């Protein structure tokens, strides 16, 4: 059997008429008519992407301004460039994917899981290359403090991000939550790089990077619970 014969069989089957009944179409029309007010389409994707990136940056800066920019001041220039360039690129990719997740039928450059893996690997790699202090002091206690600070910043960024995307509609709330968590987690890491002065390699690689997957996981769980709640109702 050749592909052309399968095509022919499919085309033959598709030609078989199966119209939706005119009464049904009339009923559908009548059901939407009462609420048929003009709506404003979503702004272009690049505008929403830019707003999301700016919000992430603004939240990280606001938290860092309150806590102090000690980490940024202590970093040398090449480290500043490498870390913040990586964060900027990853944030742009995450914001672009988040807008796509909240707009049905959008083109995607990467998958949510791929983005999360890339963000974790890139940040972990950059930190491992830049930080050479291999001492380990108060690993867990100082690490937990950084993780919680980063997650608090991420939560604030996520809330504002959701407000920006309130007119959108996520086809899959789990993956939309995962991407929202990844983007806000990157805001949390930005805050830690601006504020934290603990330059022990293991501390930065483990605890600072961990903010992204933990935040993404929390976003996915939140999305799953919303989706399940809607499905049950």
């Amino acid at each position, binding site marked *: *059997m050749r*592909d052309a*014969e*399968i095509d022919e*069989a*499919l*085309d033959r*089957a*598709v030609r*078989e008429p*199966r*119209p*939706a*009944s005119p009464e*049904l*179409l009339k*009923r*559908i*029309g009548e*059901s*939407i*008519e009462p*609420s*048929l*007010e*003009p*709506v*404003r*389409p*979503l702004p*272009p*994707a690049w505008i929403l992407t830019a707003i999301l990136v700016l919000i992430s940056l603004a939240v990280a800066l606001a938290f860092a301004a309150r806590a102090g920019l000690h980490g940024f001041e202590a970093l040398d220039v090449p480290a500043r460039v490498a870390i913040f360039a990586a964060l900027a690129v990853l944030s742009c990719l995450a914001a672009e994917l988040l807008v796509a*997740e*909240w*707009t*049905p*039928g*959008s*083109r*995607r450059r990467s998958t949510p899981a791929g983005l999360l893996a890339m963000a974790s690997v890139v940040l972990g790699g950059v930190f491992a290359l830049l930080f050479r202090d291999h001492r380990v002091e108060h690993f867990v206690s100082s690490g937990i403090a950084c993780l919680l600070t980063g997650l608090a910043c991420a939560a604030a960024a996520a809330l504002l991000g959701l407000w920006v995307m309130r*007119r*959108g*509609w996520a*086809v*899959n709330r789990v*993956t939309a939550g995962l991407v929202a968590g990844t983007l806000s987690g990157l805001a949390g890491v930005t805050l830690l790089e601006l504020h934290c002065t603990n330059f022990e390699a293991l501390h930065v690689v483990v605890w600072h990077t961990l903010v992204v997957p933990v935040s993404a996981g929390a976003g996915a769980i939140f999305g799953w619970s919303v989706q399940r709640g*809607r*499905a049950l109702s």
Partner: protein
Amino acid sequence: MARYQAGDFVAARALIKRISPALHRFLHAQCKSVSDADDLLQEAWLRIHRVRQTYRPGKALLPWVYAIARRVRIDHYRKSLRSTMREQRWDELSATAADSLTQPQPADTLEELLAPLSESQREVLEMLKVAGMSLEEVAQATSSSVGSVKQKVHRAYRKLRQSMSLVELRKGQTGVVP
């Protein structure tokens, strides 16, 4: 679509009339009956209507419509799966198992033709063949890459080739002339 977004009821009605037949067929693949498909079509349109602001004028319409319809279909599938799991009895299970052992029959309707395929393969072929969407549009509607869609089509054709060859072989053995 832009006129529908602007609140034009005539444009909305024209859009419903134009898209619904293919959409109905797409949704029917998941349902036991035509009336279920009717309900799903109505549900899909209500959802399309609720989120109509998410369509950006100038972009392809079908990927947007099918992405929403696909979600409606998935939600319906999960809901019916939950209720079926609650209600299904052992005798029904054995009846299903017996049905699956019957010999393949020649398929004439699209639903019969696509029956041997997995849900995702069937969905992709329906979008390509029934809705007439391009690979790129199907990728957008299913939130996946063009490569992944191509792979699903390739696997679907391989499976169809096997099942249709089996039917041809049986016809040859029994001497049945269609």
